[in-house]
């Protein structure tokens, strides 16, 4: 092992062989690739449900499925995309692979725990899919009581699956916190860490502090089903709104678990493809921490119409608007970085710019929803659906795609086909806006979310939306082709094809098992361009 480490032909992909060596690997890079494969499979599945939902909503009345099947498709689309795609998407996949390299470490602090967290995700997903045998689940991904304790039996399996997946997230977060604190290369001070690392560090804090609350909430929900403990059940004096409080105490920070790493990726992309020192490094780094801190005190904005006190509503409304401040700081700094930079419009940069555009729309509509009076009208309409898809898909998925294309040379030593990568971007970007912009209008007109059917006057906008969804579908199929083609026969990339300045680009592509042949010593910041 030690002697092979310096053989230039050996890298993390070929230094051990066989499926078993992958399933038992402790190498953060291999675990990252395992996450990549599993997240892509889950994404295909969740995306298929999305396509079916949009197909059903193409016309008034029954199109391809009945109301019961629709509810299940909607539940599985949400649960898969949230718990199995977007939450592990950037931290566990890109973060696992790139973050230790960016701080000059040989691995994460606890490699066995890292592998265990992948198995948690797999086990949780398996348990979640068992629910399909038991009539499926139809609660939506939020599992609101009292419906979730009275509906069919499959729900309990989906809840248990989400509970197990939660441990995957906790363990990854714990691992990353310790890694960032303890395994930085000599000279890598906190203020020299790449912004992707800062973003993952903030995310990890959220994962560690918020996810256990989801764990106990879901455990109590299962106990409610099995024993009727009554904590969320009004029949026993319990309070269903307490479930909402508990659930959103996790799930609102979870929204930032999904978006913060994406912001980290975008910071890397903007700096590299502008070939310019990032503007406001400290401000971007600290705004990640700021978003993480504020995110714990905004959960009530999901509950403006749930019967919480007016005073609480006003307070939550105000704090929610505060989130806009660090977010705007980031956006401002990204644009300022691009100003007078030597911008190259390679496909990762297109995704980064797509992110800024779409995420800004998502963010500003978020501020609109934070206004209590406005939210009473928009609550549970398609306006909300459009808002969070602009943030989650327009934000996080754009960043994942940009990140994959950007780090493809590092992960597999090969470049993506630029032409096709750009075609996939155009399809996804255009399709995305065609899908979700009409949903803002539908929501403002009053079309409720989650419903199986709608009034005839909503039909034309729904048709546009569905056609946009299929365009996104085609775009992602093209992207899949681009990725697979790059892995198999992409142009060989050198160690640093983008002329980036962060540490991972000083290692060979693909990197050897221990990442660097010589332990790097850091003497400068991460974005020393000019």
């Amino acid at each position: 092992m030690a002697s092979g480490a310096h053989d230039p032909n050996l890298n993390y992909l070929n230094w051990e062989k066989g499926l078993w060596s992958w399933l038992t690997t402790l190498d953060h890079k291999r675990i990252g690739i395992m996450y990549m494969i599993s997240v892509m499979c889950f994404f295909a599945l969740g995306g298929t449900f999305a396509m079916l939902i949009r197909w059903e909503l193409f016309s008034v009345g029954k199109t391809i499925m009945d109301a019961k099947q629709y509810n299940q498709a909607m539940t599985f689309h949400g649960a898969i995309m949230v718990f199995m795609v977007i939450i592990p998407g950037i931290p566990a996949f890109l973060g696992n692979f790139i973050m230790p390299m960016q701080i000059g470490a040989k691995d994460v602090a606890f490699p066995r725990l890292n592998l265990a967290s992948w198995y948690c995700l797999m086990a949780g997903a398996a348990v979640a899919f068992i629910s399909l045998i038991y009539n499926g689940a139809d609660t939506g991904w939020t599992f609101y009581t009292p419906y979730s304790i009275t509906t069919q039996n499959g729900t309990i399996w989906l809840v248990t699956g989400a509970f197990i997946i939660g441990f995957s997230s906790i363990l990854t977060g714990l691992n990353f916190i310790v890694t960032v604190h303890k395994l930085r290369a000599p000279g890598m001070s906190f203020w020299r860490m790449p912004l992707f690392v800062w973003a993952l560090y903030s995310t990890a804090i959220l994962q560690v502090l918020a996810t256990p609350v989801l764990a106990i909430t879901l455990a109590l929900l299962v106990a409610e089903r099995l024993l009727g403990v009554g904590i969320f059940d009004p029949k026993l004096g319990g309070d269903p709104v307490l479930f909402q409080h508990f659930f959103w105490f996790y799930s609102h920070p979870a929204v930032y678990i999904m978006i913060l790493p994406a912001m980290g990726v975008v910071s890397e992309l903007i700096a590299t493809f502008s070939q310019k020192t990032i503007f406001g490094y400290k401000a971007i780094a600290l705004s990640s921490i700021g978003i993480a801190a504020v995110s714990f005190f905004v959960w009530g904005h999901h509950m403006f119409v749930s019967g919480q006190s007016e005073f609480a509503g006003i307070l939550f409304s105000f704090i929610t608007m505060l989130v806009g401040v660090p977010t705007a700081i980031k956006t401002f700094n990204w644009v300022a970085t691009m100003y007078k930079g030597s911008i190259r419009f390679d496909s990762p940069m297109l995704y980064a710019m797509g992110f800024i555009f779409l995420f800004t729309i998502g963010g500003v509509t978020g501020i609109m929803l934070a206004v209590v009076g406005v939210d009473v009208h928009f609550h549970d309409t398609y306006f909300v659906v459009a808002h969070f898809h602009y943030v989650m898909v327009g934000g996080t998925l754009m960043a994942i795609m940009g990140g994959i294309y950007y780090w493809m040379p590092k992960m597999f030593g090969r470049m993506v086909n630029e032409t096709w990568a750009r075609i996939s971007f155009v399809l996804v970007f255009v399709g995305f806006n065609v899908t979700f912009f009409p949903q803002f209008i539908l929501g403002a007109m009053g079309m409720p979310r989650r419903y199986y059917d709608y009034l005839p006057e909503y039909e034309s906008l729904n048709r546009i939306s569905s056609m946009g969804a299929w365009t996104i579908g085609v775009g992602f199929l093209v992207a899949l082709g681009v990725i697979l083609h790059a892995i198999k026969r992409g142009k060989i990339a050198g160690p640093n094809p983008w002329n980036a300045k962060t540490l991972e680009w000083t290692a060979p592509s693909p990197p050897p098992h221990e990442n660097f042949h010589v332990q790097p010593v850091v003497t400068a910041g991460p974005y020393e361009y000019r």
Partner: protein
Amino acid sequence: MSTANTSASSDGKSHVHHHAHHFDSAEHEYNAAKFGTWTFLVTEILMFGGLFVGYILYHERFPEMFKAGATFLDWKMGALNTIVLLFSSLTMALSIYYMQHDNKKMTLINLYVTLACACIFMVVKYFEYTHKLHLGIGPGNYFQPHGHGEEVQRALGFLKDYPNIGMYFSFYFCMTGLHGSHVLIGMGLIIWLIRRTHRNEFSSKYYTAIECVGLFWHLVDLIWIYLFPLLYLVG
């Protein structure tokens, strides 16, 4: 202590611990492991935190019902378990101390005592649980007292005044159940430590696992110290 040290190395079975490849030194590895354990304890506190928040809310809403429910718990049993767990925390700490001084024998004795205390705790808990479930004093929907005796009569009486008294026992069983599962996990970990100590895997230079399990064990103890007054002494 020096004798223990030489006896451990002279029998030829002593293992030298090699730190993992991504750490600079054993000290580095030890610090990371300890930091990781502390972070893990934070997640534990937040997980129990959900139950504590629920307890506070409903205690505020139904104070009389909680008082009535607590009359079914025997504070003597709770106190006994508190003393047992506190003592086990001491022996756990001592086992670390002795390993820091290469005293394998005393480490083992203290680990065995810790394990025995955990067993006593679980046995007491077992008798408390079975007694209640036997009388039909269960959580939530399973609060259906039946049979004879003063306790059953009292339970049926309370059921008239506080129809949702089952909720008190929901909290009782969920909180002590989650805590009990942690005790069981802790017992598994202590057995693992005992086996490794027997195999001479620890020394004053490497005792990370004992230290980390110790931290976990103190947290399990600490949570019980909160559970005892909240559940047993609230009446």
